[in-house]
């Protein structure tokens, strides 16, 4: 169940854009007319009537993005992000829907907390939000949450993200109970005794800098365990933020054995390696950490061939005072909603590492399917969930331009090519970049 504050259904005409729907195999210059929030016509020289016109020439019009992994920090850390600021950031990033993780304070582990969030989203959310609920009470890994009640209250899926489900026994019970809820489990795979104290990827750079290492093995060992459990219980799972080549290899192998597992990867793991940590910038500290060149290549390969079907920002806002400290004292996590497309276009599409069509599918259709959500489409009769992309203009990532309440971006000060010109979410224009500058 995804909710937003959208009431109004708008009449919009997107004129002369290159309409690119990779799933439909569509790539043509067309006008797209939206009547009362629903795509009513695709064609040439459509009449604008009284419609709000989005000038699309030079731009690409694609299905709106879906981010399956966002930390909205609400409740508990509204200084870092709120439903309103987080969804405004999502709109500015081209997202028409996002999924929020339950590791808040309090944790989303009861129907009461979840219902309050869903209600708040009905008034505050600019784009549609779905909430995940915790697998274990307080994310403490001891007792299962009341998963059936939570599912009834609107939980889209279940996850202890931020922490692994350390106990194999508890995860097995959660998988068994998922038959009752019908919801997927989203797994943060980290073997805590291998990652203990780790600040960055264990490798040459950590050896040189002296940081405690968090080996790739800590992720892939847990993926092997979790997929073995999923195989045994015959339940689907979604693997969060893959970072390592060995994890990709494990996923392929278990899939061949028939396990129904989807997976996601973040823009920062696709664009960076642990070498970047030499700058000691706390905005390069995240969990899982940036890994080796070989890991990055394996992730790109898996994204290209579809082994990893979704790109997730793992947007993790942190207050300035929390990140304005030495690397080791800083919390894990970076923001990503407002920079994902530009970062990926600049670092992957422009250099020819992946085609634009693949990127668009992995930002929209892929993540929606991972959680069984209706994928956005550019087709007559569909609710309008669209993104208008300018792939030519360059822009500089500035701290004061974020809609997010936090600015812990690894891209600060960088010049990127590709920006979101407009976002239509659930039949309404939720973001429109001024064409000036």
């Amino acid at each position, binding site marked *: 169940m995804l909710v937003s504050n959208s009431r109004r259904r708008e009449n919009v005409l997107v004129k002369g854009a290159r309409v690119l729907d990779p799933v439909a195999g569509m790539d043509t210059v067309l006008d797209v007319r939206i009547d009362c929030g629903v795509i009513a016509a695709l064609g040439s020289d459509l009449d604008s009537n009284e419609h709000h016109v989005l000038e699309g020439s030079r731009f690409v019009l694609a299905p709106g993005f879906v981010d399956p992994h966002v930390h909205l920090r609400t409740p508990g850390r509204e200084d870092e992000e709120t439903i309103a600021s987080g969804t405004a950031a999502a709109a500015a990033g081209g997202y028409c829907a996002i999924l929020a993780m339950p590791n808040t304070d309090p944790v989303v582990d009861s129907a009461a907390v979840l219902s309050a969030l869903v209600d708040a989203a009905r008034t505050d959310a600019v784009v549609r939000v779905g909430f995940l609920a915790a697998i274990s009470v307080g994310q403490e890994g001891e007792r299962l949450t009341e998963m059936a009640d939570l599912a009834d209250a609107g939980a889209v899926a279940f996850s202890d993200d931020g922490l692994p489900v350390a106990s194999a026994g508890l995860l097995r019970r959660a998988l068994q109970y998922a038959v009752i809820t019908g919801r997927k489990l989203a797994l943060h795979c980290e073997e805590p005794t291998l990652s203990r104290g780790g600040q960055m990827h264990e490798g040459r750079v950590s050896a040189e800098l*002296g*940081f405690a290492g968090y080996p790739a093995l800590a992720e892939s060992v847990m993926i092997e365990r979790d997929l073995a459990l999923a195989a045994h219980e015959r339940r689907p799972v979604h693997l969060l933020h893959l970072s390592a080549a060995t994890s990709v290899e494990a996923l392929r192998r278990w899939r061949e054995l028939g396990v129904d597992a989807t997976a996601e990867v973040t823009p920062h793991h696709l664009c960076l390696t642990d070498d970047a940590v030499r700058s000691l910038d706390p905005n390069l500290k995240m969990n899982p950490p940036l890994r080796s060149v070989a890991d990055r290549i394996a992730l790109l390969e898996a994204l290209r061939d579809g082994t990893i079907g979704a790109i997730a920002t793992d947007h993790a806002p942190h207050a300035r005072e929390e990140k304005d*400290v030495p690397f080791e004292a800083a919390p894990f996590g970076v923001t990503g909603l407002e920079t994902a497309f530009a970062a990926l276009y600049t670092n992957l599409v422009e250099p020819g590492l992946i085609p634009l069509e693949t990127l668009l599918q992995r930002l929209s259709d892929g993540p929606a399917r991972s959680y069984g959500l209706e994928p956005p489409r550019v087709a007559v009769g569909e609710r309008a969930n669209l993104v208008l992309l300018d792939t030519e203009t360059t822009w500089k990532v500035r701290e004061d331009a974020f809609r997010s309440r936090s600015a812990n971006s690894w891209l600060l000060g960088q010049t990127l090519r590709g920006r979101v010109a407009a976002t239509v979410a659930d039949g309404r224009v939720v973001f429109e970049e001024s064409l000036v500058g």
Partner: protein
Amino acid sequence: MADIRMMREPLLPPEPPPRRHLLSISDLARGDVERLFATARSFEQSLEREVKKLPTLRGRTVVTLFFESSTRTSSSFELAAKRLSADTMSIKAAGSAVDKGESLRDTALTLAAYDPDVIVIRHPHIGAPNLVAACSGASVVNAGDGKHQHPTQALLDLYTIQRALGRLEGVHVAIVGDALHSRVARSLVQALALVGARTTVVGPPALVPAGIEALGCETTFDIEAIAGADVVYVLRMQRERMDAGAAFVPSLREYTTRWGITPERLRPGQVLMHPGPMNRGVEVDPRAADDPRSLVQAQVRAGLVVRMAVLYDLLTTGPVPVESAVREEVA
């Protein structure tokens, strides 16, 4: 009288010198090391005089900011600054605003308001000196940041080796012990590589970080490998490494048996070094520590003159006045 020098250059308004820092050994070129050692050598000679204080840095302010306990490094920096007539101010984390939750940036900004010329900082977190350098107007000296770097320790070790063996190029140093958790090891490996020495890191598997070779050393788990070295450099072995869940080695006893340095493991002609503080009976046998081959006291003395040289070098831009006198000695 002999110290009076003629100004050969015309008197021009001085340019403000570029602010320099010593944050990591990687900030240094080989020529910098040679220049620092020439300066240190001249200071060493001056310390043989009855009045040991030099007026060189009169009117300058050196702040030492220690967020970790330290005896030799903090006292060494403080005495070095005093011997050069600088004003000194020592701040320890305990009892300071840091105890009240002040952030490192705010502490640095507060100190910067006094316009110190040099801030010497030790901090448990990697990169803390870089942060202070970025937000204060002072030259920053890293006196140890987490497990990352301790550049003045590496410089004083090199200086000690050069004074004892008469050379650095081609010297073979075996660094024995917990290299994983050691900023001394990281700085020293880099510094030895910089001056053309050869380094072998020896220790238990979990304490020799895979990938440290990239800094310019060989690695082995076999203590016998120290036989070929000119210098056996022993690292401190900390008890926390045996904590439940860490288990880097099974026990201190087993570590001592396998990797402890005894007089029997030292061959004639080898010298022994240790950055201190020593755990006698753990990583080093007391007999080896007190052996004439031990350079531990020489390291402490070198620490003073090398730190004097570092402070002097950061705060002056002109040529070292005594360089020519000692050039042959360090060449």
